[in-house]
């Protein structure tokens, strides 16, 4: 799904993207593979989400992003094969 032009200096990678609740509804699926241009921070990943999944844009400000099952800080690094989860505000209980 990446729209990057081919570039030999960038190590392309794939992550597993999970989406829940309204985020799943917005992108039309609960899980998919997602091509990224290479290792990037969660902050950068958030920016790419808005580009690759425009329907997520209105949800992004309230969306938490988990990497490998833990909510990640913006500076955390996302690596090849990571499980990325899009977590809207929760409502369990």
């Amino acid at each position, binding site marked *: 799904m990446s729209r990057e032009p081919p570039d030999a200096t960038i190590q392309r990678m794939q992550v597993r993207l999970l989406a829940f609740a309204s985020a799943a509804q917005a992108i039309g699926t609960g899980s998919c593979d997602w091509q990224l241009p290479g290792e990037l921070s969660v902050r950068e990943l958030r920016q790419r989400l808005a580009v690759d999944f425009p329907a997520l844009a209105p949800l992004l400000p309230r969306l938490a992003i*988990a990497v490998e*099952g*833990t909510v990640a800080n913006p500076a955390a690094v996302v690596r090849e094969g990571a499980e990325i989860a899009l977590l809207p505000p929760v409502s*369990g209980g």
Partner: protein
Amino acid sequence: MRTGLVELPLDIPALLAAVADPACGAQAIFVGTVRDRNEPEGGREVVAIEYSAYTVMAEKVLERIATELEAAAPDLRVALCHRIGRLAVGEASIAIVAASPRRDAALGAIRAALERVKSEAPIWKREIYADGGARWREDEPLAPPTLDDGTGSS
């Protein structure tokens, strides 16, 4: 099971048994059930709620909540389960049980566990209304874990 997500009806006696201890004279239990209205004051008529979860993370969070509460109070034992799937009005979505030699510890623990589940566990409800509509409830933004311990405790 001490903590977990379950698809079958919650078994409160089993949770009580999971924390039973002859040293504990106080057991406190919280059971959340599906209301027929979507706000305490009234709101829209609800016929069912569909609960979904990021299962692997939610189970870690529930276990961490129980473990951290137990670590903070001597002799406290905590068990908690959340149900997922479609629940009709009156069915239980969550059950939290705490046992302690001290009633204040048991009562405080179920309140604290409930607040933490509501704000930390990746679980969502979708309300199904009598008029045919449906809506995701998304009330509590998840925060990253605190930086110093990396466990997500607050």
